[in-house]
């Protein structure tokens, strides 16, 4: 490691504040510390930094709040971490248009506060919202419980400005809620884990906060809950969230299976939903409780934490498996019985309306026990992903399970926009 | 033959007289709304077989880019059923029917048929359809053939199959031995008449469907109408017009106008949708002839389909009939005359009758005048589709309002050995009144 005073390479033409030496430790990604951390404060500085890095073929990782850096493989090589936290301006916010344009380094909390002042919001469920940046959240596209009824990043992102690996800056989309002018590059960068470019600016359409926001928890036998979830998901109630909570999955340590619902709307609308929900739960032989505001907030915060890798690598493995909603019941029993037969502790949370299951697995000989489990899981399920795992395990398994049929195309896209694999080298699907 | 050429090259275009009006062609903005309603497009999913495609072909001929004699022009203009489903949905109001007939006439001119065909067509359109005496003679011969046992004999010998006429034979309706010969006869209502109406008896209606003509008169009389079968009327001319025989069609029209002008009538009632559509559009035949245009306009203004007319009356309640029916919309009622609700309202007024709607009720059954004879393959596929849709409803009776459809659907049912009945809507009403 070079000494603190001398940067590992000449930084003059990077043209922005930087850190090197020990100070870079706190920007480690999965245990890999960068040689230099850049702290640009303008979009131009980001572009210039990328240009300089690419000129010298230095690898670079964009870095927001660091809350989701556990996702993906560890960087193969990491010369530079480019912190986006200096890009923290809300550029335009027009409440009457229900649109907002923000820089990538704004935290979700910062944006939410601005929106809340006008009774508006972005329905993104994330852990650590005071650290998590909007750029990082979009790059990870880890969607929470409200995706079911309110939509998520994919539904609300209407424009982007991107800095590409060679320093080119280009925009796509716009500030309007409907747009087919040119290709939808928002989708291209969504969930690309910053491997195709650095998000500089993001435009969203925003939602109005509903006057009523109720959370209910339903308990009953697992099968009854799953069948109730299926009924709710295809009903006209348009619930915001239908979340299946496994035993001991949340901090409240409840030991039975539960189904949590988020209900929003006008007074009359929400009341009607609540009444119907009670009736449907009763008919499935389940019990409904309505939570108080604080309890509710805690519950959803816990859900967000559960599905978010955070520091899971120290504790165990976090996986996500997606199936069609009707396959959820089978999936739950497959995962729990595989965990059981491999001597692993397992807790699960699932977006029941979407068919997305998250499981946390822990145990004494995690690495050895997890591998057979993962092997059989990925054989039966094309869409399984390890969101977090201890470093040694990550070296041994394919985090993305099976490669999709479009993988060649993904490789071509990566090669086009980042031919030298400078951005987040090796971290994405298939070690792109 | 040069087909796609610069406008300067020698592609044969339309002759000026009676060309498909450019103003109508130009109204088409190519939105494509007509595509899914077109029966031939539904069979082929090929753009050429769609109204939009056909209009474009006519445009190309009109622009001098496409030769009028090109095979595709002829094929498409005759593949078209002229059901006019496209017209009913066209937001721009393109009168497609006003393009097809002139186009066919132009093709006939540009592309003379062999002499024997021309003679045969003249015989059929001028002699048979042009002269009701001749028509009745021919129909009488068919009736005799059917009723005398001759048919059974002929069928047994397999002669028809040998001659390739078996399909045509199967299409023939059972022709009754008694015809309605319009000669001024009247049907009187009970009590004082509220309406004086003339019955357009038609050619096929008054012969093969004579009982339906009589039923029509009875139902009208039952509802306070004095009905007269106006003498000297003849075929409406639609068949000739559809076949591109404009002159013959015009002669037919004139004769009917003259016949009906003589009487003071509240309405001219027609029970064949195809004839009704033609009668209502006589004015288009006399462009550039103000005198006849005016007379045609007056005539057309008083023409009413029987359902349309009955729907405006305070109907005398019919008796009960326990039937499950489904309604097959005749194209020339639904699309050409835009009458869709009236027949359904009438059916709803018969106690005990339950209407189960079929899918694609307004898609042509493939009869379309003489289409089933000239395009048997398309016609058969449309018929099969119609039968499937109709039978799926579980109805015991299929209701229609046009002789062509009734014959077509009935022949299909016969072939499939189905016991479902096909009735004209007035036949059902008549039955209901008689059951009181």
């Amino acid at each position, binding site marked *: 490691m070079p000494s603190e005073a001398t940067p590992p390479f000449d930084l003059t033409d990077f043209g922005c504040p930087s850190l090197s030496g020990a100070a870079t430790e706190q920007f480690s990604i999965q245990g890999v510390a960068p040689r230099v951390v850049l702290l640009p404060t303008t979009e131009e500085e980001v572009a210039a930094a990328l240009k300089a890095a690419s000129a010298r073929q230095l690898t670079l990782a964009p870095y927001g709040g660091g809350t989701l850096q556990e996702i993906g493989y560890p960087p193969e090589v990491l010369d530079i971490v480019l912190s986006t936290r200096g890009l923290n301006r809300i550029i335009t916010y027009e409440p*009457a248009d*229900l649109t907002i344009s923000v820089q990538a380094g704004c935290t979700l909390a910062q944006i939410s506060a601005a929106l809340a002042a006008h009774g*508006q919001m972005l329905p993104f469920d994330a852990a650590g919202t005071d650290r998590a940046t909007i750029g990082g959240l979009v790059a990870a596209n880890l969607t929470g419980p409200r995706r079911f009824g309110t939509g998520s990043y994919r*539904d609300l992102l209407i424009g982007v400005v*991107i800095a590409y690996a060679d320093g080119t800056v*280009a*925009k*796509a989309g*716009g500030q*309007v809620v*409907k747009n*087919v*002018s*040119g*290709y*939808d*590059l*928002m*989708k*291209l960068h*969504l*969930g690309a884990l910053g491997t195709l470019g650095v998000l500089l600016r993001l435009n969203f359409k925003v939602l109005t906060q509903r006057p009523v926001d109720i959370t209910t928890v339903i308990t009953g036998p697992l099968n009854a809950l799953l069948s109730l979830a*299926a009924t709710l998901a295809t009903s006209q109630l348009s619930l915001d969230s239908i979340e299946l909570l496994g035993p001991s999955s949340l901090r409240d340590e409840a030991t039975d299976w539960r189904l949590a619902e988020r209900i929003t*709307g*006008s007074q*009359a*609308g929400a009341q009607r*939903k609540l009444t119907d929900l009670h009736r449907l739960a009763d008919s499935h032989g389940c019990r409904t409780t309505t939570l108080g505001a604080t309890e509710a907030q805690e519950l959803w915060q816990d859900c967000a934490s559960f599905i978010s890798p955070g520091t899971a690598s120290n504790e165990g493995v976090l996986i996500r498996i997606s199936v*069609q909603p*009707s*396959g959820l019941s089978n999936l739950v029993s497959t995962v729990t019985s595989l965990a059981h037969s491999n001597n692993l502790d397992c807790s699960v949370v699932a977006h029941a309306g*979407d*068919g*997305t299951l998250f499981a946390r697995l822990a145990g004494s000989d995690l690495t050895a026990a997890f591998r057979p489990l993962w092997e059989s899981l990925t054989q039966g399920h094309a*869409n399984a992903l390890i969101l977090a795992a201890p470093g040694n395990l990550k070296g041994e398994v394919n985090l*993305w399970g099976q490669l*999709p049929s*479009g993988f*060649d*195309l993904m490789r*071509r896209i990566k090669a086009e926009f980042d031919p030298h694999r400078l951005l987040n080298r090796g971290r994405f699907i*298939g070690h792109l | 033959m040069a087909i*796609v050429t*610069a406008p300067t090259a020698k592609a044969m275009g339309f002759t000026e007289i009676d060309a498909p009006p450019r103003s109508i062609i*130009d*109204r088409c*903005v*190519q*939105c494509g709304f007509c595509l*899914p309603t077109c029966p031939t497009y539904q069979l082929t999913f*090929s753009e*050429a077989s769609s109204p*939009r495609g056909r209009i474009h*072909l006519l445009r190309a001929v009109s622009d001098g*880019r*496409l030769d009028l004699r090109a095979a*595709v022009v002829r094929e498409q203009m005759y593949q078209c059923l002229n059901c006019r489903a496209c017209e009913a949905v066209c*937001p*721009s*109001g393109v009168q497609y029917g006003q393009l097809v007939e002139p186009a066919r006439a132009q093709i006939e001119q540009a592309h003379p048929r062999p002499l024997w065909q021309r003679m045969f067509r003249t015989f059929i359109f001028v002699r048979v359809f042009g002269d009701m005496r001749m028509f009745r003679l021919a129909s009488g011969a068919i009736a005799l053939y059917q009723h005398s046992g001759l048919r059974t004999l002929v069928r047994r010998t397999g002669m028809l199959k040998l001659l390739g006429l078996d399909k045509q034979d199967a299409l023939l309706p059972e022709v009754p031995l008694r015809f309605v010969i319009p000669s001024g006869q009247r049907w009187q209502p009970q009590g004082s008449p509220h309406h004086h109406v003339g019955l357009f008896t038609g050619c096929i209606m008054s012969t093969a469907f004579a009982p339906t003509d009589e039923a029509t008169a009875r139902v009208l009389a039952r509802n306070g109408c004095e009905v007269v079968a106006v003498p000297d009327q003849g075929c409406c001319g639609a068949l000739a017009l559809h076949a591109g025989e404009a002159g013959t069609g015009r002669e037919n029209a004139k004769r009917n106008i003259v016949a009906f002008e003589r009487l003071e009538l509240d309405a001219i009632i027609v029970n064949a949708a195809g004839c009704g559509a033609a009668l209502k559009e006589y004015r288009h035949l006399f462009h550039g002839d103000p005198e006849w245009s005016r007379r045609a306009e007056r005539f057309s203004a008083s023409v009413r389909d029987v359902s349309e007319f009955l729907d405006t009356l305070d109907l005398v309640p019919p008796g009960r009939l326990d039937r499950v029916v489904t309604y097959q919309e005749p194209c020339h009622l639904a699309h050409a005359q835009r009458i869709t609700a009236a027949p359904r309202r009438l059916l709803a007024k018969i106690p005990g009758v339950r209407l189960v709607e079929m899918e694609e009720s307004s898609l042509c059954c493939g009869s379309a005048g003489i289409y089933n004879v000239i395009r048997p393959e398309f016609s058969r596929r449309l018929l099969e589709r119609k039968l499937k849709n109709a039978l799926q409803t579980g109805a015991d009776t299929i209701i229609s309002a046009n002789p062509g459809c009734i014959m077509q659907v009935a022949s299909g049912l016969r072939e499939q050995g189905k016991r479902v009945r096909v009735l004209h809507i007035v036949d059902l009403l008549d039955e209901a009144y008689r059951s009181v």
Partner: protein
Amino acid sequence: MLQVRGLLSTMVLEESKSVHNDLISQLQNIVGADSVVSHPAELLVYEYDASLDRHLPAAVVLPQTTQQVVEIVKLANRFDLPVVPRGSGTGLSGGAIAIKGGIVIVTTRMNHILSIDYANRRATVQPGVINADLTHYTEHAGFFYAPDPSSQKVCTIGGNVAENSGGPHCLSYGATTNHILDLELVLPTGDVIHTSGADGDQHGLDLTGTVVGSEGTFGIATEVTVRLTPLPEDTQVLLAIFRSVDEASNTVSAIIGAGIIPAALEMMDGLCCQAIEAAYHAGYPPDAGAVLLVELDGLREAVEELVDQVSTICRNHGAGEVRRARSAAERAALWAGRKGALGALGRLAPNYYIQDGVVPRTKLPETLQFVEQVSRDIRLPIANVFHAGDGNLHPNILFDRQDPTNIERTLRGGLEILRFCVEKGGVVSGEHGIGLEKREHIAFLYTTEDLAVMARLRDCFNPRQLFNPDKIFPPLRGCGEVRDQRVAARLAKEGIYAV
């Protein structure tokens, strides 16, 4: 290269007839003789869509299976011929026009609904399935397919995917992209991929989202898995009648500003109301300055509240009358009028040229004022019928193509309107796509760098630019006006018509 040249005139096969014959016979081997159109006269009907341009393809194929599509695409590669996917040809930006000749692959015979799965709220269909049929076949079970372009009874799901089509109900339900779960895509190389796979979440890059809206330049969709949506319990439709466009557009801003997102919020000006009434007799007041058609849906109780709120906002902003459709039939009639509005304009003038710009919703009033001013400047009437809730304008310039000066003014008017939209923070197309028609206008919005990135993405899918060449990207950068004049001259000479 074998190519059909001559926009409107002589068809020239630049290479020998035998190459063409060879191509045709190989195509026939793949799909059968009755699914190949090769005779020039018969190709005429594939030279247009619902937009302005025209061009003849060299051949048209109507395959029925994915495998056939794959073989056709491979053949096109061997012959080095452009491939243009085509659905029903209702596109308003020229996307399905074979501007460089080549093979048009028509999907209208790939029209089977392959599976419907209510439990998982999805259906898998072939691309030639008609949009409205999906709803027709699922509503009995309480579901519908939400994106509803006005052309929904005609246009194909494949076309919708390519254009990312919108429609009145996209205001609250989202456009096509929000309802596509997976695509089977034949790439320009002939390889077949599934962009997502059957199961939920993104796995790798979001190829599905990237492909939707790519206007047939990334490949041809041969199977589409769509999301089905539960039908709302209650639906109410209001017709608010205003004296002026200004009042109506202020009302739109007020409704959105109040945080109410109706299921649909459409505006029609007086001119449109007249045309619609003539065509549909649906109950639109022909003497109004403008009307808003507002649909509210959801649970009964919530809808009642919204009806009250929206009615009040309308009245407070000058609505002389707010009518509520009393029955399903009345609702259907109002919608039939709205959805047929574009075609009905054919009754007002021989031609209309539709724009599809979008502005932020607060900019609607001033944009519509500008449109009125443009109308005065170019001395041609402009009829507005559009998705007001989204800020997606459709000013229709009414003109007569027989008059050459008309055409120049029409194009100028369109250009000015779109430029204004972009100046106000908007975009040049909200749902019809760029295609041929807006190739120059897209440069108002994006810089060369922006467009270069998009072109690079296209090249990943379509490296030889075999699929739908010459679309989306400006052929002559910065020469918009130049080309428009060329178009104008051509229109005048050849009698092409706009939309």
